[in-house]
């Protein structure tokens, strides 16, 4: 496969790096990536760590491309399942300790998925959460972000946040920790 550039307009992780959030990798983390799609971001992250990347995807058409990608790399683990199905995720991860949880699933119950998935990780794990406000409601996006921060504060502690404006419209990015 060709070496592609990491484009902030197609990847939210890269866009958050451009916004000066502290999410650089040390080099040996295990990552749980919910909502991997065809694996454009996963391919770039696999170069940065030696640990495993558990990429979860639900739609078959996209998961086929993800499996194709995983066959060429060493440390990508494709998991075809719903991200809500935490029992299967637990079984597929074989008790590996996870250092970073990334969630990028644009749907109405985004927070619920994050809360359920946070049972799989320890307290000192870093959580990256990218929020698409349009999929939750069509109203004023800044107010929706404020409401969601309230919900997040129940279980998580917000360390950093950023608006991904020039790269992604009406998207927010949070760095969280478990309370």
């Amino acid at each position, binding site marked *: 496969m060709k070496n592609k550039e990491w484009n902030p307009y197609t990847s939210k992780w890269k866009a958050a790096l451009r916004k000066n959030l502290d999410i650089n990798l040390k080099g040996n983390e295990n990552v749980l990536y919910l909502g991997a799609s065809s694996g454009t971001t996963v391919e770039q992250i696999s170069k940065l760590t030696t640990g*495993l990347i558990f990429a979860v995807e639900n739609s078959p058409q996209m*998961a086929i491309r993800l499996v*194709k990608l*995983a066959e060429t790399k060493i*440390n990508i683990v494709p998991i075809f399942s719903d991200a809500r199905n935490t029992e299967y995720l637990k079984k597929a991860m074989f008790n*590996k300790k996870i250092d970073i949880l990334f969630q990028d699933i644009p749907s*109405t119950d985004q927070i*619920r998925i994050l809360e359920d998935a946070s049972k799989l990780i320890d307290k000192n794990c870093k959580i990256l959460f990218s929020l698409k406000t349009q999929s939750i409601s069509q109203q004023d996006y800044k107010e929706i972000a404020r409401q969601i921060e309230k919900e997040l504060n129940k279980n998580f502690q917000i360390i950093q946040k950023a608006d991904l404006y020039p790269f992604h419209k009406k998207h927010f990015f949070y760095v969280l920790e478990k309370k």
Partner: protein
Amino acid sequence: MENAQIVKWNIEQSKKEIQKNLLKDNLIIFFTRIIEDLNKYRDPNFYGRIKEIYCLLYPYSNKENPKEILDELKKSDLKSKEGLILEIQEKKYLSKFLDSLNKEGKLKDKKNIKEFEKILDSLIKKYLSNSNKNLEPYILGKLISSVGGIDNLYKMPSSTIQLIGAEKAMFRHIAKKRACPKYGLIYYSNKIQHSKEKGKTARQLANKLAISIKQDYFQKFRPMMRNLTTAAEGEISYYEKQRMEPLYK
């Protein structure tokens, strides 16, 4: 367990799961798009469509040249180990389409549209027999293809099905408070064309469709759940487990 073993186990497992989730609605989408192309363009080239069907049958192959793919598909017996598994009748339909193409990927006989419409008819009579009583096969296929699969369509409420294809007008209504659209793709069905109160019949038709599509989905596409009531109970218990409540009203 070592890392390499975990990767290997997961690749094998997800390949199995993917094959289970490749449904026959992909075939319906394929043939409706062919008819759409033939109606839209004068002399269309089918290389893109050939690639689509090849990726369904042999998903993990790395071939990209459409000319080679066409040659290979014409010779092969359309059996697949890892992709979509076709029945005998469906293989005949596909080989009929492949035989009607020349080397450049175009149709030999340009008046072939009626044959493809017959194929689509028989596919929909087999898989969507309940909803075919309400709506014409071509429009049903268009509904499925525009949403992206029957997996998405069966979850939709009737009011959303009524407005599929009228998204632009719908969002204009929400943002700028213009008039609300009454019908989307459904508008071209015979029932609405011949009625005087078009908005009313569109609503009635969408109500019936929402029920019948769910029936078809649980009878034909996911035959594990034969009985509709047990299927509904399973869905409800699944959502109760996940605490699915609307976040904002």
